[in-house]
């Protein structure tokens, strides 16, 4: 049957072809390879849609396509494709955003007369290929490989304007920081292979399945350092989490993301907002069956997520540049997803991942549109009053902002509410440390709702409302259809995509509205459905729900609290910044503002770690290498050369010496072996 799955490899292969085309033929093509990229991503989008429809029909796909290392009496290393509802959803998101970003790039890059376009489109193509391959990777090694490839593309694209000072440095930073996390990931991958003998995500022979059996005493696994299986699985999970925290910019590895804004804005939208940053969260969701077995890992994930959400939101409050605000907001929103995953809200996390991809891509593209208009000035204090001059951008940006702030009925409200709701009920219901941690994480998540509302609308008001504060803002540069079209598509989606899963409304009205729950709960491959995860969470990790006000009451109360806080944030911003001539109210924060502007001195302490700790360590290692290791090596070689010199001297050149030596040696041998052999 030549169904959609037969063509699944083409979803990733098409952008790869566009990468090759842009790289080798981009110079000779009218738009520097843009058209190839648009065609390829449109193809991927259509195929993804077909795949999603097939999956909706109940089919799944889990197939090894290529074995690149045959294992003899051990595991094999393979490449394969795994498509279940989660994959299908993510494929759709990635290919949609990639397509829109390619279109937008026509306006942002081509129309602005940028040079190096083939390199740009080659980077986008390679990224899209890698990301899509990562999404449907069937095992963790393949996932790791493409995880690294998207990291590489991120590096290349952040540093696109490599002739300026800041972008290459930012690219390097992004590469190094995420790499730091990836070391743990790699160790985790090796550990998983060593423990389970497989890296498969799904199926009866997958490592989450084996891990569960091992905890039930039905399977044997190799653990290390004398740990019991549960502890060891926690260790493995946390190792992989290292990569996740790097890629999804979670505290303390979030520092690279704000700097990554040095890249072109469409790149920020695609890579550093909607897709690559989501790779970390997606990975946790992909192997959720494994994390669900370890309450400790869940607690850590939730805590990291909640803390990051609040931490980043506070920094977003004082930023002056449009993209910086969005960057911190991105970090904060991924914190929510991690919080959801840690709190057992698998569906909530995926839901928020979906809505966030839409509205954050929209906001970035909107910001890109503003930046075009402002002749690449990103400082919000130089803007103001743009709403009348660029209405399409304004209204779509507003749609995205409402979604981000979590105002009903925009997308972000439904997903963020569900995240907080899950954290709350599981925090209340779970016993022991896990419950406490979840409640603490919930509190942080809740608090950051207020900040989110505030910084979002501070950004909106400063940019679009009031009076223009500079000449450029008075006469902005116009934008073309290729900018407005992606904005319009995403603007509509940001407003509506939340309808996928309106849990509070469902509970209120009794009408079935939680479609995403259905999508993820059924029809997946055994062990990868949200239903299984729910059972696992409850049985193994001890995550239990508790509704203090009854199910409906709790739901509504939670929604009301988060909406109230969001509105409070928006309202504060309204009163402070929706005026003709806004002033820098954040100055009133005093020294706190300095701390916030310096991002809590995160960069400073990381630099100190590098120069104050790592560098002396490296020097010590170098000393050891130069002195001890080289010393031994040199010693050996001088002894050898000295010995060699002695050997040479034996060869005197006088033949009678040789005869003497030969005869003596023979006599010595005769005597020695005569004594041994007892001849005498």
């Amino acid at each position, binding site marked *: 049957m030549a169904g959609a799955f037969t063509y699944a490899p083409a979803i990733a292969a098409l952008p790869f072809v566009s990468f090759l085309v842009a790289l080798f033929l981009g110079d000779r093509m009218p738009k520097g390879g843009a058209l190839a990229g648009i065609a390829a991503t449109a193809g991927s989008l259509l195929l993804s849609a077909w795949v999603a429809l097939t999956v909706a029909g109940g089919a799944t796909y889990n197939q090894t396509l290529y074995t690149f290392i045959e294992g003899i009496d051990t595991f094999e290393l393979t490449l394969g494709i795994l498509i279940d509802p989660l994959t299908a959803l993510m494929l759709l998101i990635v290919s949609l955003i990639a397509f829109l970003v390619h279109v937008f790039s026509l306006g942002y890059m081509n129309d602005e007369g940028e040079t190096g376009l083939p390199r740009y489109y080659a980077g986008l193509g390679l990224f899209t290929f890698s990301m899509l391959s990562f999404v449907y990777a069937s095992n963790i090694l393949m996932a790791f490989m493409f995880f690294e490839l998207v990291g590489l593309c991120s590096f290349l694209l952040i540093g696109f304007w490599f002739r300026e000072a800041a972008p290459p440095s930012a690219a390097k930073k992004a590469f190094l920081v995420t790499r730091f996390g990836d070391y743990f990931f790699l160790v985790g991958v090796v550990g998983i292979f060593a423990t389970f003998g497989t890296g498969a995500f799904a199926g009866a022979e997958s490592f989450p399945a084996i891990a569960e059996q091992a905890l039930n005493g039905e399977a044997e696994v190799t653990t290390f350092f004398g740990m019991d299986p549960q502890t060891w699985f926690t260790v493995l999970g946390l190792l992989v989490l290292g990569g996740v925290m790097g890629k999804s910019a979670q505290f303390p590895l979030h520092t690279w993301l704000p700097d990554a804004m040095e890249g072109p804005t469409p790149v920020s939208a695609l890579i550093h907002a909607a897709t690559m940053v989501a790779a970390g969260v997606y990975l946790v969701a992909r192997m959720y069956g494994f994390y669900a077995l370890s309450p400790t890992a869940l607690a850590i994930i939730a805590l990291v997520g909640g803390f990051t959400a609040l931490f980043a939101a506070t920094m977003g409050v004082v930023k002056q540049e449009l993209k910086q605000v969005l960057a911190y907001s991105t970090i904060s929103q991924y914190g929510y997803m991690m919080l959801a995953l840690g709190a057992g809200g698998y569906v909530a996390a995926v839901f928020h991942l979906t809505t966030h991809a839409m509205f954050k891509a929209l906001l970035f593209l909107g910001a890109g549109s503003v930046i075009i208009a402002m002749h690449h000035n990103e400082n919000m204090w130089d803007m103001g009053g743009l709403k009348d001059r660029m209405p399409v951008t304004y209204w779509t940006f507003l749609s995205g902002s409402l979604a981000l702030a979590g105002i009903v009925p925009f997308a972000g409200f439904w997903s963020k509410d569900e995240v907080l709701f899950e954290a709350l009920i599981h925090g209340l219901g779970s016993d022991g440390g896990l419950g406490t941690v979840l409640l603490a994480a919930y509190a942080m998540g809740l608090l950051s709702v207020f900040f989110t509302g505030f910084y979002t609308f501070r950004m909106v008001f400063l940019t679009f409302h009031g009076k223009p504060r500079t000449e450029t803002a008075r006469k902005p540069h116009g934008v073309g259809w290729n900018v407005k079209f992606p904005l319009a598509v995403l603007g509509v989606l940001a407003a509506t995509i939340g309808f996928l899963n309106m849990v509070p409304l469902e509970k209120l009205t009794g009408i079935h509205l939680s479609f995403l729950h259905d999508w993820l709960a059924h029809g997946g491959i055994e062990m990868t459905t949200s239903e299984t995860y729910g059972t696992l969470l409850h049985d193994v990790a001890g995550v239990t729900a508790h509704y203090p006000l009854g199910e409906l009451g709790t739901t509504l109360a939670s929604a009301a609290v988060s909406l109230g806080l969001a509105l409070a944030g928006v309202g504060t911003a309204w009163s402070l910044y929706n005026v003709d001539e806004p002033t820098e109210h954040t100055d009133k924060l005093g020294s706190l503002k300095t701390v916030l502007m310096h991002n809590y001195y995160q960069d400073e302490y990381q630099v100190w770690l590098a120069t104050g700790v790592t560098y002396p360590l490296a020097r010590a290692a170098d000393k050891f290498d130069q002195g001890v290791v080289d010393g031994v090596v040199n010693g050996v070689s001088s002894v050898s050369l000295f010995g060699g010199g002695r050997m040479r001297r034996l060869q005197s050149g006088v033949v009678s010496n040789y005869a003497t*030596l030969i005869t003596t*040696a023979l006599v010595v*041998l005769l005597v020695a072996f005569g004594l041994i*052999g*007892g001849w005498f």
Partner: protein
Amino acid sequence: MTQLALQMTQSSWTALAPTLLLGLSALALLLVDSISPEESDSTLLAGVAGLGSLAAAVTTMVFLFGGRGLPTEQGGQGIVSLFGDQIVVDQMSLFFTFIVASVVTLVVVASSDYLRDHRYKAEYYTLVLLASTGMSLLASANSLAIAFISLELASLPSFALVAFLKSNKGSVEAGLKYFLIGALSSAVFAYGISLVYAATGALQFDAVATAIGEGVQTGVLGIGILMIVGGVAYKTASSPFHFWAPEAYEGAPAPISAFLSSASKAAGFVLAFRVFLTAFPVDVAGAAIDWVLVFQVLAIVTMFVGNFAAATQEKVKRMLAYSSIGHAGYVLIGLAALTGGVDQSQVLGAGMAHLLVYGFMNTGAFLFVALAEYWGVGRTFEDYNGLATQAPLACAAMTVFLFSLAGLPIGGGFFSKFTLLMATVNSGTWLLGAALIINSALSLFYYTRVVKAMWIEDPADGLELDDYPVGLYTAVVAAGVVTFLLLPGFDVVIGFAESAASLV
């Protein structure tokens, strides 16, 4: 009955064809020379010599693949034994004849250029072929008398060949020294043979073994065996009988150095393998002398002496000479690791396989030196600076030889050293294995010096090669290609080597 016997005789005679081909070509060369004594047409003489040796090499190969020298029970055509078991043609003799004949072919092809400005070409080729006849006969020798005669047949022309450059003092001096040490060693060898004969009353190898089994005077036999070890050590250039080698190899024309260090060494080893496994098997001769221990001592000493001395040389040819001594030490593992209970075919086969690979890579390396001498670039490492800019192909081949000699996986030397190492592991002679590893590591140092000089260093001013001799190039490149092909093709070599080793 008579007819059958005749048939058998005919087929038996043909088994010696490779040896006969070598000898007959030598005679043919003398004939050509006497018809036109002033004929200095290098091509004709080299052609006759080259064709003769190539024919011998091809014949042995045909024999090997055709199953000659393999017992009929194993699907072969049977082991041929001639002259009342004085001469035997089995897979081992064919294997070594192949090494000798292919080395001679390379050497002859290379010599056609090397000798361009020299006189007495016919004599040169004749001597080479006569020596190789002796060597291939040595591979078939099945009695101590034949062994001694073929050893002399191999040695005497070699003395003359080393001294071939009559106007070159170094060459003449080297020849004389070689002759003197050779005379001493031959005396030791002959005395050893006489003592063994005195103890056992037999010269034929199997008869010797039988006699020892029936009980002999161990003292006399032990001294005799040890002296035969001396003779073998001389021929293989192993310590402490190696003193002739550096000087002879350095003084001789480079193709002759290649010939002596590859073919002559192989011939020495085949003699050792056959004598010690057939005439003095460990289980019977062990009472008189534990010759495995003797070879262990010799192997370790030889490895260290050869490699350590090579490390401090300034001249490439002399470095190769010492490295050739070191390699004799490696091959000695084939005898030294024959401790009780170990699989003989594996250990001995490893030594044989290494000799075959070594035959190509070492010959190639010396022929490259011949090429350098031909160009007159000088003898030291520094003189080779930047040669790759002028002769990249030859330098690439040389790089393959050197790295393969060191045991890097760029040529067959990697696998042959590896099988030797496995032999030491399987026999538990870890000291030999350690010596092998240490010395291989050390050898990488001095081989790399040549590679570095050729490829990395800047050429000296005015380094200009205007002439690319076809014969030398052909020989060097052919040896390089074979060395490289022996990496994937090592299975075939080790297959023959192990099956041959199991027959002795």
